[in-house]
């Protein structure tokens, strides 16, 4: 029996018309469509459930430098930055130590880091006090707002008011040795200088050249409402700084090594160092001190304590008597 003869015979019985099958199937599809289509539309307009929150400043951290794409961000107008605010700054994260290269260049980078964190051992002959580079450049030269190396590297050569000529990066480092370390600079082709430049270059790998990176230098403070005062600063010092640096500011030595650096006297930076300027010291202190509790002092406290520290005796500026 073919389908057609079965169909015709069924039509004639008047009990079951095969057309009903078509009507039933069609009706079901229609109802399903009425329900399904608006449901799809609702799903499309609803927000995606797993939108990952992106944290500003955390982007690219720990990734290889190639992955960390520098991104231009709007600078938040915090009062601390208003003084030398730039319209835009660029976010950058230095590569992690695990990504340090191997080979001869890797050796230079590693030596640079060793000099930076333990200057007293690895660049002994160039240092005239008890400081290490890392005392002012926290986190082995990585910490933002603590004059990080990766933000300094791409800003040289540059003209500097301090010596009235265009400085290379090497000359800038030499200044640190002469003033902050109260010593003498390694020659530009010495293994120490090559190592420090290599370490800086590697930390800055992937950063745009000649662009102000976010976290460069110390965030300058606005002019204080009260003139910085050493007497008030002494109180701030005793309450917040003496714990580690000692009431006499001479730091804390353990087994021949300084855990906390001396802030004045013969073992500290000399009168030509950037830190001997109240403005710089206040900016550093406010952003970074006490260690791990940056920005916990008020700006006025930072100005006062900087004034107190910088009014203490220290080795003289080696340029004294000469034209600066």
């Amino acid at each position, binding site marked *: 029996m073919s389908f057609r003869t079965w169909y015709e015979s069924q039509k004639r019985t008047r009990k079951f018309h095969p057309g009903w099958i078509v009507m039933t199937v069609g009706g079901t599809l229609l109802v399903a469509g009425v329900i399904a289509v608006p449901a799809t539309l609702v799903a499309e307009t609803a927000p995606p459930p797993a939108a990952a929150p992106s944290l500003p400043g955390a982007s690219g951290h720990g990734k290889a430098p190639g992955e960390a794409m520098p991104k231009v961000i709007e600078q938040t107008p915090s009062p601390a930055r208003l003084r030398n605010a730039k319209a835009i700054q660029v976010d950058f994260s230095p590569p992690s130590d695990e990504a340090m290269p191997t080979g001869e260049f890797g050796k230079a980078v*590693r030596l640079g880091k060793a000099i930076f964190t333990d200057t007293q051992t690895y660049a002994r002959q160039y240092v005239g006090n008890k400081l290490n580079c890392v005392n002012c450049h926290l*986190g082995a030269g990585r910490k*933002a707002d603590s004059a990080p190396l990766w933000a300094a590297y791409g800003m040289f050569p540059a003209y500097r008011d301090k010596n009235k000529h265009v400085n290379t990066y090497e000359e800038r480092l030499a200044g640190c040795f002469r003033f902050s370390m109260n010593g003498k600079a390694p020659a530009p082709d010495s293994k120490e200088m090559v190592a420090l430049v290599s370490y800086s270059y590697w930390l800055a790998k992937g950063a745009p050249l000649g662009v102000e990176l976010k976290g460069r230098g110390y965030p300058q403070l606005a002019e204080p409402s009260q003139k910085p005062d050493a007497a008030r600063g002494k109180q701030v010092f005793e309450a917040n700084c003496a714990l580690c640096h000692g009431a006499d500011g001479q730091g804390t030595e353990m087994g021949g090594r300084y855990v*906390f650096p001396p802030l004045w006297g013969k073992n500290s930076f000399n009168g030509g160092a950037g830190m001997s300027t109240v403005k710089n010291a206040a900016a550093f202190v406010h952003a970074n001190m006490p260690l*791990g509790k940056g920005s916990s002092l008020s700006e006025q406290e930072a100005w006062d304590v900087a004034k107190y520290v910088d009014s203490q005796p220290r080795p003289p500026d080696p340029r004294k008597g000469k034209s600066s």
Partner: protein
Amino acid sequence: MPLPFIVAWMPGSRKRVPPRPAHLPAGATDFRSRLAGVVSIAWVATGASLAHADRLAGATLAQQGGGGVPACMACHGAKGEGQAAAGFPRLAGQGQAYLLKQLQAFADGTRKNPQMAPIARSLSAAQMRDAADYYASLPGWRQAGAPHTPSAQYAQGLKIATEGDWTKEMPACFACHGIAGDGVPPHFPALAGQPMAYTQTQLNAWRRAQRTNDPLGLMQAVAEKMSDAEIAAVSRYLENPSRPGEEK
């Protein structure tokens, strides 16, 4: 030094005196112990070292307890080395000022601890000082022969202890606690050699403000930036830290 003399001199403790050499005549022991007693009493009485006297009293407290106070060594070990499994800390070689401050903190509740609070409250000020003097005089942690077992967790702990993580304002442990975690008296205790469970508990206590006796809130500021994994890693590392330069 005077401790064995006093022990030897006390009546009823003769058996602790080493056997008399055969060549000594009878009665020599008596003479020797009496002489030692007189010497030690004279020595203490002259007040040549008050700290020494405190240490003696502290040693007695540590080993025998006294006045309803249990012996410290029951939990902190015969040599003050702590008990790793129970998470009882090492006391030997810890700074005197730090130990004293902790006892005071247990008593005044700025360091909450159900075991130590009643003990500390029943100690007199002099007893606290004695115990602190005694444990500070014991030798500190030295890395025993077997170094650590290398693991990813240990490596993470090493990094936190030596470098911290400045992307979240977290300084390195050793920036304040000394080059190898040996401590920087009077404020920063030694961390090296502390049982993992102890360090972990303390970091969590700071995070949850159950311990608030740190100067300037420095430790609280660090602990609140640490994740559970970071706390575990650094506690693991500090149990048996490598010396500087040993890695790399």
